[in-house]
């Protein structure tokens, strides 16, 4: 609901972009959504490489 509301309000309030493309309707919504997806996916991939069991550093003590 709220999500729709902000999109609708975007139709009424025209955002004057500072660059060429950021004034497009829904730019912020799409950009926020896509960048978050990207960050989660990158984190997931890095996690496969870097995640270790909690006792990793103390295992041999």
């Amino acid at each position: 609901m709220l999500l729709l509301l902000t999109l609708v309000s975007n139709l009424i309030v025209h955002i004057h972009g500072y660059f060429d493309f950021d004034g497009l309707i829904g730019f912020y919504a799409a950009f926020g959504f896509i960048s978050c997806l990207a960050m989660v996916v990158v984190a997931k991939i890095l996690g496969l490489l870097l995640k270790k069991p909690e006792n990793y550093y103390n295992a041999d003590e």
Partner: protein
Amino acid sequence: MQDHISSMPALWMLLGAALIAVLPNRWRIIPAIVLPSITLWCIWFSTGDSWQTTVMGYSLAPFQSDSVRQIFGTAFVIAAMLSLVFGVTIASKTESSASMGYAGSAIGVAFAGDFLTFFVFWEMLAVFSTIIIWDGRTQAARAAGFRYALLHFMGGVVLLAGIAGLATQGDLIIRPLPLESLSAWLIFIGVLINAGAPPFSAWVADAYPEATPSGSVVLSAFTTKSAVLALILLFPGESVLISIGLVMIFYGIIYALLENDVRRILCYSIVNQVGFMVCAVGIGTDLALNGAVAHAFTHIIYKALLLMSAGAVIAQTGLRKCTDLGGLARSMPLTATFGIIGALAISAFPFTSGFVSKSLTSQAAIDAQLLAVWLALTAASAGVFLHAGIKFPWFVFFQKDSGLRPSDPHLSMKLAMGVLATLCIGIGCAPQLLYPYLPYTVTYVPYTTEHLVSQLQLLLFSGLAFFLTLPLMRRTLTLTLDFDWFYRVPLFRLSQLIRESVAQHGSTFRLASHTVIQSKARVYVDKIFASVMLGGRSHAGSTVAIVTSALLIIVIISFVAFR
């Protein structure tokens, strides 16, 4: 002289540390409130706004004030006072006293007009914070405290080498330094280590969460932010800081997304937030520096609030992992509310303090026509909401029902959180409380319909992304490798090898190496004294290089000994 000393804010805080140490425990709340108040008065109303003196031919300014320093000083005082109030029922006497001393050192750094004073307080920061970490009193706290102390003393050595080099070239007054000489670079690196810059970012999330719940609150405020202040005073507009800041921002987000420990999530987000400030210092325009200062001020407040709500949960449940927590909003409604206010503020939600401070930096990136930087900052703002704004409250206060029914914490904790939450919303609704005190005149208007709509879109759709990707973010019982792996695993193995071979080859080898190291160290110490104290300016550069490398080797060896 007496006037000067009584007008020096840091000394009042240190007096407070001494008083807390000697007074009976039940009275410690009195110095914890009175002395920060006196300090605050000194910061704003002290008559002599600078104190100059000459020592060994160098003119020093132990107390130097301006608007940037006043804002940082004020934030430090607020953080100190409220975290002491927060911890009054759970903190030990050692911790309370060290917290006061720690805050005093940060204020000392903030008002230091010369590098000598700066360095003394800088090292005191490391000492007091290590004491606070050790006061966590677990095996993990002991080990993390050692790693923390060694890294920070190494940073201190690098900084000192830079200062020594600077002293041979001229005066010690703190002013913007161009990154042209070896000494300037050494100072730059020394400061960045305290800011949590890569590759040494791991110490923040490694050490801070091992302190007590109240200790973590204290720790979050001072070291990284005094480093930000140092960057503002020394290296404004160094463009390399933009990239360093961006790396910190995304490092913080990614690692926080992978983390399971509640306080570690918040500590990674300290690196993330300091990244915004470092980036702003790198942009270096008036608006950007205003942004860095305003962001540091509001950040100290909402980060303390977030760590307090996490601390209250940990104090009430004894648990610290997302996998163990959840569904606490019903039994801890006040803590949950305060935590959510902190989370909204860090995400720069409209009508919170983050909204009016972080947007200064974004606008500065736009004005400077840095498109890529602006896109990265905008993506990062969405990422902040993802990792701190939703993840923290969701996994602690909602998520599943963990079956735990802890009550809201002691009155003192609620009071401290209440004051901070009020500040978050107060500054957010009335930016005129903050803007007039910034170093440059603010013409920026945060509350326009465009800004409101765009920010809400950005945040709400990141929220949508969070809930859609929840299955990907299932919490696991893991830690995440970081740069500290290099000194915790290979270096440690190396030390074991050396130890074994030393044991095999008998004591003669050990004795010999001992004497060699000692005599070498003495030569280097003599050299540094000669160049600093006696003004031996001829071979300054090489001495600095030798001293640094020698001390670095010594520090690395000590790292190995205390994995």
